[in-house]
């Protein structure tokens, strides 16, 4: 589904990703863990198409297409979804309008008829209930004045409405209390299916108690330095990231 090969990316001439490789197949859940500054968020932004990041070399194949040459909205419409670490506030745009525009963009792409306001409201209300959002959030501006937890729920709501093929959760757990974390995890778990894949980016193993991954990758210094199963996450929790950083600098030394 997604195949990242030797990806190098930089921002303002500062190399952040330095030869990242990752294979994600349908049905799999991958967790990417790593210390701050290891390139976790850069990876998610590059995959979503953020133009501030420059891809220096490497390739990303997405469902047989060259992902890096696709415009941002094409990536989204073809089923790639990024749940933002810091969802953007958009004053003046109602959440309802925003959500419907997103859903209809995806439906048009799939050759489905667009949902009118009535049909959409019916659908969205059911999903909001599932992620524990009150209806009033439909009529408020996108993310404006939402608490951290409310913003993350809104991201999960968008994800469940858009039913992506690959969802990337960028530190969706940060700033959430345990109840909110469970709601978010439930939403994600409901989406799990043999046709869909997930990349869960997180600093802490806590979320992985609720969204149990098939694979755990440790990112350090812009590349994956270790891969394993869920037990790797537990090991990181126990030992901290100190040894990972060491590993990364050793590898860099070896490569030089």
């Amino acid at each position: 589904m997604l195949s990242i090969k030797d990806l190098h990316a930089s921002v303002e001439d500062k190399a952040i990703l330095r030869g990242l490789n990752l294979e994600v197949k349908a049905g799999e859940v991958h967790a990417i863990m790593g210390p701050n500054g290891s390139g976790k968020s850069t990876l998610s932004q590059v995959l979503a198409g953020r133009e501030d990041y420059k891809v220096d070399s490497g390739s990303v194949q997405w469902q047989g297409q060259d992902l890096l040459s696709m415009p941002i909205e094409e990536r989204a419409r073809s089923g790639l979804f990024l749940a933002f670490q810091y969802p953007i506030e958009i004053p003046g745009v109602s959440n309802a309008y925003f959500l419907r525009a997103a859903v209809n963009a995806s439906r048009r792409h799939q050759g489905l008829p667009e949902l009118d306001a009535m049909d959409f409201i019916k659908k969205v209300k059911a999903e909001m209930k599932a992620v524990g959002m009150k209806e009033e959030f439909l009529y408020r501006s996108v993310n404006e004045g939402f608490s951290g937890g409310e913003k993350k729920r809104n991201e999960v709501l968008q994800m469940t409405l858009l039913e992506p093929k690959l969802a990337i959760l960028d530190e969706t757990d940060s700033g959430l209390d345990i109840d909110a974390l469970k709601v978010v995890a439930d939403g994600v778990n409901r989406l799990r299916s043999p046709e869909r894949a997930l990349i869960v980016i997180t600093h802490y193993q806590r979320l992985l108690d609720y969204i149990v991954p098939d694979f755990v990758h440790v990112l350090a210094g812009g590349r994956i330095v270790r891969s394993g199963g869920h037990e790797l996450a537990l090991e990181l929790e126990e030992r901290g990231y100190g040894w990972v950083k060491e590993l990364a600098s050793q590898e860099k030394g070896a490569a030089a």
Partner: protein
Amino acid sequence: MSTVQTWVTGFTAHARSSAGAKLPWLAATRQRAIERFAAEGWPTSRQEAWRHTSLAVLEQQSFLDAGKPSVAQFAQQLRGDEPGHWLVFVDGRHAPELSDVGSLPAGARVQSLSEALEQVPEQVEAVFGNELEGSSTAALNAALAADGAFISLARGVELDKPVHLLFIAASPQAASFPRNFIVADAAARAVVVEHYAGQGSGASLTNAVTRAELAADAHITHLKLQQEDAQAFHLGAISVEQAKGSVFNSHSMSFGARLARHDIANSFAGDHCETLLNGLYYVDGRRHVDHHTLIDHARPHGVSREFYRGILDDTARGVFGGRILVAPGADKTDAVQRSDSLLLSRMAKADARPELEIYADDVKCAHGATVGQLDEDSMFYLRSRGLDETHARNVLTYAFAAQAVDRIEPPALRSKVIAAIRKLVPGGASLGEF
């Protein structure tokens, strides 16, 4: 040509036939006003308040005294089925056949200025104002104003429906000089809408002055919607005097005209006054819009909130000058002023100039101005949800305007403004449905 001499020459005949010509005080005021205009001429960019706005193109136009065009259908279309006390003016003259004031509570008067000059000349005299106020353009209005609206509310009178003043520029090259009055006695309340629209009238001229006097605890909401034709000239002035505890909320929505100038001056003559000056403009092509505001915090405990937003496309130009004056002793003044301009093209230009003069110690005054393009993070967020670039731009442009619309209370007043914005913002018809 609209040279100063043309207006001065035309004045004599005009003064003889205008409503209220037999009232000595009015004749004298008109005479002094035309003399001021003759002496000063049109404002020039040498004057600080007009630095960015040139009336040279206006001077090159000629204007005619209009005939009687047919506008019934257009008026009906603008009115829709909105409830209210309706006064309609065509090329500056009251059109009784299109108006429908309806029933008013005792102590309320909503009529044309020409009627008021017949019926209650002494009341008009008390609020008419003089030739010295504002720019020379306002003096020209004082000299030539023959009609307008006269609204007066006795103590405690509340209008539960808005007063709608509809000004239609109907004839090509029509020049009109409406002068409107809102006189609210203690604790009176009303909503007044001034809607200026053009019916394909091309390069018409509207020079409008509105004067409001609010007694203690009066509460007036004023919405001005300027939708004149793209070749029209609109020179507007609103001056407000507020007594203790009164509230004046102004919404200036300026979307039309080739050149629009709005002067809004608000004076707090008593303690604990409040005002909101909410402005929104949209200009494209080579059009030009200029708002100049003055809030005179002459007394303590005054609260003013000023929010101006402009959307500029093509080579359009927007100007905002906001002056806040806090007089000595006007302690506990709380003033906030913001001006935000959104440039949709590299060639568009916005000037924002806050001017705070504070002579009291214990005050809170904040101001800020931004001029910029659409927010990149917001663009990325919308596109990452599948909206294409054009759609994302349109959504954010609409949203920028919607934030000004959201300040309009009561919400029933918003629909016309929203309709106007949807016509202007590309793809606007489908935007903001929720």
